[in-house]
């Protein structure tokens, strides 16, 4: 293949992943709203470019840690979307056998070390994963996703210092969607922001337009190359916007509707689509929609887990009777 067609193929692949994430989350939110899916879903709709642009530069052996808003990271890293959909429906065959749900999806087979219900908790875990990779001389890196709210939690500082100190192969990705739950994050964050904080701890930082997947891809490529080359950790500050509410049922009344509307106008999917063959785009989107609708139908049809599964996989010694 020529490099131009290579590049096109890469773009189509990224479009596909973004479309798949969006379709997945549209289904997930609908399922949550209708009550088909129990619990809570945190959609990353509008932010797909960050997950996809970063993960386009990762290999299967690389690991990621994720957040409560983690469907996109998982899908972009190659996780089994059908198993994910079953998981958030709480069904047998789900990624975690129905034990985790949307906030705890993991897919170790592709290096997805888990979503996390605790803000910032993935940061120390990513540091340790990288330390293990170093110790075992694996050829892999770790990408650690977190939100702008996480930069106000202590583990953020600890993890930045830690990764810089041990020069660990970690790409920190701050998805700055402007909000921490119902609070505009700038209203509770002082100083120069996430990137400045990371640099203060010795992690070089780069800002990127997270709503432009090609920019994310390009910058991530560069940072990942530095990390693989032994350059130590890097920090990617990706500006984006959370189109939906904090959860699938939050109407987000705490912010002007125009703001969200403006963000919809910067849609990472449409921006990439504009560079591609419209027919191909339509096909990719239709395929993604069909795939995820199929997964949702499969989830609804899937059996519930055996109630006894509530007692397994706790621990070996001293397991519940």
């Amino acid at each position, binding site marked *: 293949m020529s490099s131009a067609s290579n590049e096109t193929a890469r773009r189509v692949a990224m479009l596909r992943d973004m479309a798949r994430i969006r379709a997945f989350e549209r289904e997930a939110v609908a399922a949550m709203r209708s009550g088909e899916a129990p619990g809570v879903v945190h959609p990353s709709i509008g932010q797909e470019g960050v997950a996809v642009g970063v993960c386009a530069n990762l290999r299967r052996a690389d690991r990621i840690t994720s957040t409560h808003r983690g469907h996109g990271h998982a899908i972009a890293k190659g996780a089994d979307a059908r198993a994910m959909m079953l998981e958030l429906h*709480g069904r047998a065959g789900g990624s975690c056998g129905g034990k985790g749900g949307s906030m705890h999806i993991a897919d170790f087979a592709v290096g997805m070390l888990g979503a996390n219900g605790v803000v910032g908790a993935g940061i120390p875990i990513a540091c340790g994963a990288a330390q293990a990779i170093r110790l075992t001389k694996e050829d892999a890196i770790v990408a650690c996703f977190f939100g702008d709210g996480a930069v106000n939690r202590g583990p953020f500082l600890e993890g930045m210092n830690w990764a810089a100190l041990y020069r660990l192969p970690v790409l920190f990705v701050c998805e700055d969607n402007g909000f*921490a739950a119902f609070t505009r994050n700038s209203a509770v964050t002082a100083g120069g922001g996430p990137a400045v904080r990371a640099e203060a701890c010795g992690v070089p930082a780069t800002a990127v337009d997270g709503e432009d997947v090609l920019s994310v891809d390009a910058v991530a490529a560069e940072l990942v190359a530095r990390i693989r080359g032994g350059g130590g950790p890097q920090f990617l500050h990706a500006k984006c916007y959370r189109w939906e509410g904090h959860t699938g049922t939050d109407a987000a009344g705490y912010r002007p509707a125009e703001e969200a509307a403006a963000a919809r106008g910067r849609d990472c999917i449409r921006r990439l689509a504009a560079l591609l063959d419209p027919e191909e785009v339509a096909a990719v989107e239709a395929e993604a929609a069909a795939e995820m609708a199929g997964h949702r139908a499969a989830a609804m049809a899937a059996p519930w887990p055996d109630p006894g599964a*509530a007692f397994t996989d706790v621990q070996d010694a001293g397991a*519940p009777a």
Partner: protein
Amino acid sequence: MTRMTFAEAARRALAEEMRRDPLVWALGEDLVQGGIFGQYKGLAEEFGTDRIVSTPISESTIMGAGLGAALCGTRPVVEMRIADFTLCAMDELVSQIAKVRYMFGGQGRAALVVRMPQGMWRNSAAQHSQCLEAWLTHIPGLVVAAPGTPADAAGLLKSAVRSDDPVVLMEPKNLWTAEGEVMEEIAPIPFGVARHAAQGDALTVVTWSAMVPVVEQAARESGIACDVFDLRSLWPWDEAAVIASARRTGRLLVVHEAVTVSGFGAEVVARVVEALGPGGLRAVERLGSPRAPVPFSPPLEDSIRLSPARVADAIRRVAAVGA
């Protein structure tokens, strides 16, 4: 009496305390927006954002700042959002707040309230469903309250705000929208006084928090004459009432949502057995969660959830021993 939700009762109680005492203020995430259960709704409008403070996601500092503010004479209400996040602020709660008065020989007091809604709610899974009340009863210096009705939510909150001790208030997440009768004038409810929720001679049933309505229903449906105590506060707890009842009934059942192993039910059982001597009882049982994390999927959650039917079975089982 007015019928209102648990959240509304708690909200009113706090509003009244804030009106009464200008030194009372609250801090936590999303408080200006009303808190995630609506328990702070409208308070920022009434009291301003100096007294209803929306904070960064900084649990250590939310808790630690509460302490500093208490040491300087204000009465902070520290909102942890959910009890699980208190795990991010345990040093501040356990090694600082609980100990300052003692370590400093009484020079300072941590007169503050730490609110931590807890327990299972809407399939929130392992990291958002924990019940850790037993932990806090183990920590000298802390008062631990766990209301199970709207009226108690309001009355205990008032006592918590007025207490010179640090009070941990564990509201049951699952009951925020439950309704109940609340007095027009909300009176503080003293710590250490159980609510005698049902009277009977067959066995003594002790419970608290989210299990209160479950146990009440189970007691009604069991067909057994239960002496039911809603402890309302776990430290101090109403040992006298429970021991007197158990002496009379000879049978003790403790029901809580938390994991049974090393749960507060163990303390209740041990204390009653020590007080009466083992010979003073004919039957003892604890009913709680298995030693497993809380799973997400509804049928899995159901396999660990204590339903009225399961509690009624336990009531009948305990009542039947040696009868």
